[in-house]
């Protein structure tokens, strides 16, 4: 973990409520896809955890949805503005377990962290299939970015206004044979993927956090191997340890 100052280079809307922010700063602690950063915003007490969309050579890209006062404030920030950021948080995904044909499944704001994962897997020569689930056509983002990496992309929307109508699990057959499952999204989606997936896999969870680095026990969850902290021992849990509680 490292605390450092990042400078906003770009901050643009991708959809009506999803924004992309590109920052420059020290990305050296971001070592795996699926990690997150924790951002201090003026006038707000708790830092805002945002998953890393991409990080390379001092350029950090975040894609975030406006869900509350913090992200709303972020969306109003101009290039040149500086932010106090904790980097290198969370365990992230393990790319070494992907096998030849990994399947990546993201829903809504669960899509962004899969990008850096797909990038590394494509670079490693995997045959990557990505399923992206959204509510409606106007919510779709990042499809082309994944395609540009060389991944095969299937999109579902709940109302059928783009791609296949329904949920991400509805296109598992179309996705074909796969060797490992990586997923990120709202808990009901993760659960559906968990049940539909025929392989082992890694699932990234969300929880309200206090600190984001393992100190406060604010985001604990039970696993088959004891209590874990989503922020420090997660956010990625392997399929074999997950306990569905709610």
């Amino acid at each position: 973990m490292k605390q450092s100052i990042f400078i906003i280079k770009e901050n643009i809307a991708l959809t009506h409520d999803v924004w992309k922010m590109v920052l420059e700063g020290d990305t050296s602690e971001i070592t795996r896809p699926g990690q997150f950063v924790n951002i201090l915003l003026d006038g707000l007490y708790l830092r805002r955890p945002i998953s890393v969309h991409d990080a390379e050579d001092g350029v950090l890209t975040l894609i975030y949805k406006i869900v509350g006062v913090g992200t709303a404030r972020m969306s109003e920030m101009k290039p040149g503005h500086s932010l106090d950021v904790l980097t290198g948080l969370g365990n992230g995904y393990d790319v070494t377990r992907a096998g030849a044909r990994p399947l990546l499944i993201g829903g809504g704001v669960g899509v962004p962290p899969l990008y850096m994962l797909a990038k590394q897997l494509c670079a490693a020569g995997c045959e990557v299939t990505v399923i992206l689930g959204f509510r409606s056509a106007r919510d779709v983002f990042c499809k082309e970015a994944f395609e540009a990496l060389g991944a095969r992309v299937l999109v579902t929307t709940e109302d059928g206004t783009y791609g296949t109508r329904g949920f991400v699990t509805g296109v598992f057959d179309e996705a074909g044979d796969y060797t490992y499952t990586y997923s990120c999204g709202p808990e009901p989606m993760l659960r559906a993927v968990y049940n539909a997936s025929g392989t082992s896999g890694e699932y990234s969870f969300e929880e309200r956090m206090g600190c984001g680095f393992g100190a406060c026990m604010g985001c604990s969850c039970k696993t088959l191997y004891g209590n874990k902290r989503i922020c420090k021992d997660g956010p990625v849990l392997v399929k074999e340890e997950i306990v569905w509680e709610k």
Partner: protein
Amino acid sequence: MGEVTNKLAVSLCGIDMDNPIIPASGTFGYGYEFADLYDINMLGTFSFKGTTRQPRFGNATPRIAECPSGMLNAVGLQNPGVDAVIAHELPKMRAVFTKPVMANVSGFSLDEYIEVSSRLDAEDSVGWIELNISCPNVHGGGMAFGTCASSAESVVRAVRDVVKKPLIVKLSPNVTSIVEIAKAVEAAGADGVSLINTLLGMRIDLRRRKPLLANVTGGYSGAAVFPVALRMVYQVAGAVKIPVVGMGGVSSAEDVIEMMLAGATAVEIGAENLRNPWACRDIIQALPDVMDKYGIDSLASIIGAAQP
């Protein structure tokens, strides 16, 4: 370094401390998480995560809610239980922290407070027992002991009989008269009091129209509670003879000095560690300059200076 050490030094219940800065229980784990960030031996001491007899998962999530200048938590005393704390956590703590540590003890019965306190009292690494009779986030224990003078007195008396180390009792602010409770625990043999634990608060999720925390209510901490904490430290320090450990929203070297002027012998830092993991280091490093600014030669000399 020698001179700086002297300026900041205080003594808490007979144990000398290089400085009065103590990360508060529940915001610093068992220390080793923070040892990767800085040398935690620079701290006065720290108070480790509240320990109960049995392992506890604590409350369901969400356990955290943001507030203006503060936060609610309803962790609910998650901890691995006293056996595991002694077997696994204290050795890991010892590897990175060589000073006497403050052992925070919680419980749901007199028996449990007695057993956990005496077990931790026997550990060489433990310098003080901090008896938490004020946790707002568990039912049927914790705060229930600390909001009534007679029950506070009886639990302190019972634990007093079984521990040899200095016994500091952590008090709840959710009472009509914290002075009355402080006097009762002093009469029962406490060597010190620490205050305040969190203020009981709540937030509601406008979308779901339900309490934001799974536990409904939570403990409010952060800068927002500082004025209430300072008032209570001032009142209690004026009413008891035992030392007072001040806490509640302390976020800066200036806040530390304000707490000590009110009557605190040492100062715990809680929520600020969660926003800035280096907060206690930063505060210790800032203290000498801030002391100079206000003409303070020694922190020990200003304890209670604002008292009438």
